[in-house]
């Protein structure tokens, strides 16, 4: 049981490019993730076991860094939704690609989350990160001070602020663009998931057909019977190959472009939340200015103080936000490019392998006839 985190800043002692979520262990209903990180100094690794709640603990600590100026301008790396054993349909839909298979992609997404935090100039300095990655004991579970960030989904009453007109053209454009892209990315990811799931269904159907063909194999000396049986066996092999091909195609889709689109979609949401926080601050600032103007001489000085504080904070946020946006834009293009290139290379390889295999079947069959 860890003591409360007292120090805020530190330097991370692990290699930020070498953090791996290597395994996931199922214990009844709970999932535990094994995280291995390379020590920066010398050789050696940290091996820690973490549950989803621990990831949330980390996130909460990062959210609640009130002392860091402009922290609200940070685009926080998005944490995937909670994974559950025997998840409900609703949860599975929310997880999307990450819910497929045996959590391999989910582990990859958690890994990306940790790496992005470790690589972030502001966030990596938080002691919580060091503790999370290196401490052999699980981090504390006590609830951190109230989360000062209003998540868009929760702040229903704040929703009307979302459309508030901006004072800065740069940010207005960014908000508009983000709105469109977030929607498009989400839709595209959902539709790609539909494609993958249908591919998986086809693979299963091919397997069934292949098995059914084996039932047609008849014993007997009859030359016609033997010929038919041979044909059925051959066709069964063909459908097995088709199953393999379809399975590969689906896997390629998921592990490259699927993962990429999922991340893009969640990151656009993260940017949306940052922009919303800034907009809320803008509303607050404008309100503080009005108050300062209208204030009676008695209250004037106090109101001016509030106004000044709001202005300073807002400036800090804008400064950080601009940096974050630039970084984000560069990172997402790079990420998507990598995803697209890998996707294309893998599918190309699969297509070549399958063409070769089908060709072999074809030659054998032609020889048989």
């Amino acid at each position, binding site marked *: 049981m860890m003591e409360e985190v007292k120090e805020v800043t530190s330097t991370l002692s692990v290699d930020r490019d070498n953090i791996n979520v290597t395994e996931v262990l199922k214990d009844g209903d709970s999932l535990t993730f094994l995280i291995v990180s390379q020590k920066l100094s010398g050789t050696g690794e940290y091996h820690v076991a973490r549950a989803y709640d621990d990831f949330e603990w980390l996130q909460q600590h990062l959210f609640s860094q009130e002392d860091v100026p402009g922290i609200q301008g940070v685009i926080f790396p998005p944490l995937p939704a909670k994974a559950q054993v025997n998840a409900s349909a609703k949860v599975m839909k929310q997880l999307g690609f990450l819910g497929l298979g045996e959590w391999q992609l989910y582990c990859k997404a958690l890994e990306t989350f940790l790496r992005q935090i470790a690589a972030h100039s502001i966030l990596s300095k938080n002691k919580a990160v060091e503790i999370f990655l290196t401490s052999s004991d699980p981090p504390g579970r006590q609830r951190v001070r109230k989360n000062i960030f209003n998540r868009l989904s929760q702040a229903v009453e704040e929703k009307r602020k979302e459309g508030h007109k901006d004072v800065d053209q740069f940010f207005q454009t960014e908000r508009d*663009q983000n709105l*469109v*892209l977030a929607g*498009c*990315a989400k*839709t*595209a990811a959902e*539709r*790609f998931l*539909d*494609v993958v799931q*249908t*591919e998986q*269904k*086809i693979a299963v*159907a*091919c397997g*069934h*057909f292949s098995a*059914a*063909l084996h*039932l*047609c194999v*008849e014993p007997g000396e009859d030359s*016609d*019977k033997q*010929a*038919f049986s041979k*044909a*059925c066996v*051959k*066709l069964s092999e*063909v459908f097995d190959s*088709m199953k393999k*091909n379809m399975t590969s195609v689906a896997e390629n889709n998921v592990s490259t472009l699927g993962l990429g689109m999922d991340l893009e979609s969640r990151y656009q949401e993260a940017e949306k939340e940052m922009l919303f926080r800034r907009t809320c601050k803008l509303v607050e600032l404008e309100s503080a200015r009005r108050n300062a103007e209208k204030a009676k001489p008695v209250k004037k000085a106090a109101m001016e103080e509030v106004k000044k504080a709001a202005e300073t904070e807002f400036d800090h946020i804008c400064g950080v936000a601009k940096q974050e946006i630039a970084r984000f*834009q560069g990172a997402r*293009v*790079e990420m*998507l*490019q990598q995803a*697209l*290139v890998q*996707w*294309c*290379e893998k*599918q*190309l390889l699969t*297509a*070549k392998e*399958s*063409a070769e295999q*089908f*060709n072999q*079947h*074809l030659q054998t*069959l*032609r020889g*048989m*006839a």
Partner: protein
Amino acid sequence: MADTARDPPPQHTDFHELEDGEDLFPEPAATLESEPASLPAEDISTNSNGPKQDSLFDDDPEDLFAEATEEVSLDSPERDVLLSDGPSPAITPITPPTSVLTPRIGLLDDMFTHSSFDEIEEEDGGDSFDIHISVSDPEKVGDGMNAYMAYKVTTKTSISLFKSHEFSVKRRFSDFLGLHSKLASKYLHIGYIVPPAPEKSIVGMTKVKVGKEDQSSNEFVEKRRSALERYLMRTVKLPVLLKDPDVLLFLESSELPRAVSTQALSSAGLLRMVNKAAEAVNKMTIKMNESDAWFEEKQQHFENLDVQLRKLHASMESLVLHRKELSVNTAQFAKSAAMLGNSEDHTALSRALSQLAEVEEKIDQLHQDQANADFYLFSELLGDYVRLITAVKGVFDHRMKTWQKWQDSQMLLQKKREAEAKLQFNNKPDKLQQAKDEIKELEGKVEQGEREFEQISKTIRKEVSRFEKERVKDFKTIIIKYLESLVQTQQQLIKYWDAFLPEAKAIS
């Protein structure tokens, strides 16, 4: 409308099988043991053998009332509507959807022009089987519920049985059914596996009639066209059917009398229904003493095959559905990728995403082509064979009935002999003569019964052998065609991915 022009001597380069140009077809009805052309015409409607062909129309021979409503489907029954000719029909050509056309799949070419004929008719000594029939150009004739679909049936052949080497006629669906009805009544009960006609479909036809020209009704027309083509090719592959005058008439003559017995709730339909009910009762009580193990084994074999093929067919239909679903989903994804590309600021990324959308659209087309291959190559083939096996089972049933008839005659003869002996004992000379006459007649009947039984047994053996060989050939041919389509799909994919890769790499 029929094209009966005399063509110049056969262009051998047109045909797949470059056989000897001479037609070695034997004279009809001379050397063959079975004489279908000599059967009395009364067999067709009054004999209980006659209407038996309708058992082919439904897969459950025990379903006595299927015929009453003219239902013919592998799954749910549908009611047909009365057809009648319109006075001056308007002709509307139907354009099949491009996705339904399967230009890559020359399905029937390889399947039907092999010299399978050689192996069957050994006694005819290496005949050339040189005939190719295509069904094309579906055209809607007439309007509203009186409309019907007319198909062009083109025959290309070098067989001298025909008046010319290439000719076309226009036929409607009920013409095909009429042809099948005639052939079944002539040949089924003597042991020939007459290929069943394609199925009726109320839903499909109604859509076409009311002028709904959408994807599904176009697909329906294409499916039917393909089925009619396969039906005709299978029919002419039976040497005895190829020579049949009804078949020749069907292929050659420009005007064909309307087949009336296919209409719903006609008197003929009711008659068939009644006869079938009677038969079903008879079948249940026939317990044949099978002296020939071959028949017992074959019957079991076909029972098993029936079950397996139905399973495969169901499995394949499910696969076809999933592929169509994949096509739809891929198209949806392509659209959303295009939107993503349009909204994207970064130029190179935007370009790559738009290219991605295009690639996905092309892949969608591949999925559709593959679904068609699945369907037209396998699903329809399996369906055809499920129906063919019903015909095979029917032929075995006929043998049983022939045996029964023979046995009945024998029993009757026995009784008459006993009666004669009694009469002799009681010394009644008038009645005795009559009895002797009857006995003579019955002896003839018994002999005939035995002959018929032996004939049908022999024919069935030959037919089954032919059928089994055809089956293997069909399946092998289809599998090869299918594999070719699979290889081609992958090669197309390789091209698409190769083209996309530089776009993806060029992003930053």
